[in-house]
């Protein structure tokens, strides 16, 4: 496989996996709001009023930020190595 094809496959796979996880997590949460409102309203543990829903909401937002950060890191690491290799190959 050429370096370009490797880069293409790597980026497509990364895009697909990250998007799929986010879409499933977010739409799943929305469906939980419809089908399990009672479960979401229940407190996260005894003695507090903080509900599962509120904790999950904050985790979803924080998780979305963490996922973008991880995505950029992975792309910068592996993607830029491949790009550099392609640059060298093309120069020679």
């Amino acid at each position, binding site marked *: 496989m050429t370096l*370009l094809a490797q*880069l*293409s496959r790597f*980026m*497509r796979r*990364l*895009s697909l996996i*990250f*998007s799929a996880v*986010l*879409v499933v997590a*977010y*739409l799943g*949460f*929305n*469906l939980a*709001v*419809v*089908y399990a*409102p*009672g479960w*979401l*309203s*229940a*407190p996260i543990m005894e003695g*507090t*009023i*903080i*509900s599962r*829903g*509120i904790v999950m*909401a*904050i985790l*979803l*937002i*924080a998780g*979305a*930020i963490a*996922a*973008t*950060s991880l*995505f*950029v890191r992975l*792309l*910068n690491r592996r993607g*830029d190595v491949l*790009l550099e290799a*392609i*640059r060298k190959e*093309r120069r020679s």
Partner: protein
Amino acid sequence: MSNGANWSAISMFVLFVGATLVMTYIAARRSRTTDEFYAAGSRFGGAANGLAISGDYMSASTFLGISAMVYAFGFDGILYSIGGTVGWPIILFLIADRLRNLGRYTFADVASYRLDRVSMRGISAAGSLAVITLYLLTQMVGAGALIEVLFGLPYEVAVTLVGILMTLYVTFGGMLATTWVQIVKALLLLFGGTVLALLVLAEFDFSLGKLLEAATVTHALGGAIVGPVGSIGDPITALSLGLAFLFGPAGLPHVLMRFFTVPDAHEARRSALYSTAIIGYFQIVVFFIGLGAIVILAQHPEAKTATGALIGGGNMASVHLAGALVGDLFMGFISAVAFATILAVVAGLTLAASSAVSHDLYAHIIRHGRATDKDIMRVARITPLFVGLIAIGLGILFKGQNVAFLGLLALSIAASVNFPILVLAMFWRGLTTRGALWGGAVGLVVAITLVVLSPAVWVVVMGNESAPYPYDYPTLFSMAASVITTWLVSITDRSARADTDRAGFDKQEERALLGKMADG
């Protein structure tokens, strides 16, 4: 304060307008060529552009609207905070790199890279202008009403003022001035929101538990506000709303054009990362502000009318909170920030409209790519003038109308027309011009039809008994219709053009991955 002018707010706003006009004057000297006008010479870094992108999205509806939702419903408000966040990672995961590498000024550049230039620019410009017009209309009507309450200015004066200022920024300052305005506004909004949230948390020893406890005691819905109270009650709405939030932002022309203000894909990635982090952070801040308003405004009868509603409407929750926690000066500051927010957002929309008209319609369709830079610049500078006039006209025409559903329609069209075209052009070899055209057209028609048949229009606006389409959001069906049509028409397309479209994919993929390096 709804009667008579609010001078602390007005003076702070005049300060903001003065500063932005100085920026526009400076930017005007660096906005002479199309490259400078559309993309500020592509010299912004990822952090600055990330701030500007978040500025484009953190509109008055995010700040005032979501805090109002939390104030009214508690947990259900935070559903919109999550929704407002999840679209941004999608832009990074699917679009940012390829968009920057394949395009110059508008996303139509990408859609027409290997497909037929005239058709693709036409459908992309139509999708863009539809989204922009709807957004502009909601922003103008919201702005007029808001400024009437905040500053005590008459509605028509407020709308005209917004229209004139946005035209000035764009016509003279182009992308550079628009970006600077956006960055300043984003910083002010982040500062104001953060201070407000910290003040709220300080009242409750920085404990979310104590804040929630107090909110459930005060709120009319009581303990129910820690969980869903039914604003998303069925699976169709849950999925439609979800899809609009996930894929709408990636189809917004004024957001997409921002990715061309950075030099390369690497900075485009960083832009998306920064904007996601800033928007996500701000959504959480707004949640605390909304919860704080529930508790604190209960102790401030001066913020309410005799019936117990907030003076100026539910959207004023965060403004009244600023008054209650600090005083008139801070209330003035938050009001001025809200106005600045509207101004920056409409300026971004105006610039996107100017790019679609001058770059896509004029330069590529009317003049077949043979127009000089000078000709294009003339059209690019005149367009904002018309956009300003149209926006003022529509704003006055729709005074007092409930236009919230139009913002929703805009996001649905972005998700059902622009996004599928863009992402399929980037990733799917099999996409043909005919498929993209049919898919885009079907998405547009289905989205508009379903919104007209929905309760928000059929019942509320037109006064009928019950709506044929019982849901508020069309996205699940319009997006599916768009994607399925695109796929079906593309795979059965045996035209000569289709062969050219498919054959061009490898070269496009190379450019999408390598950027300028692909040019050798």
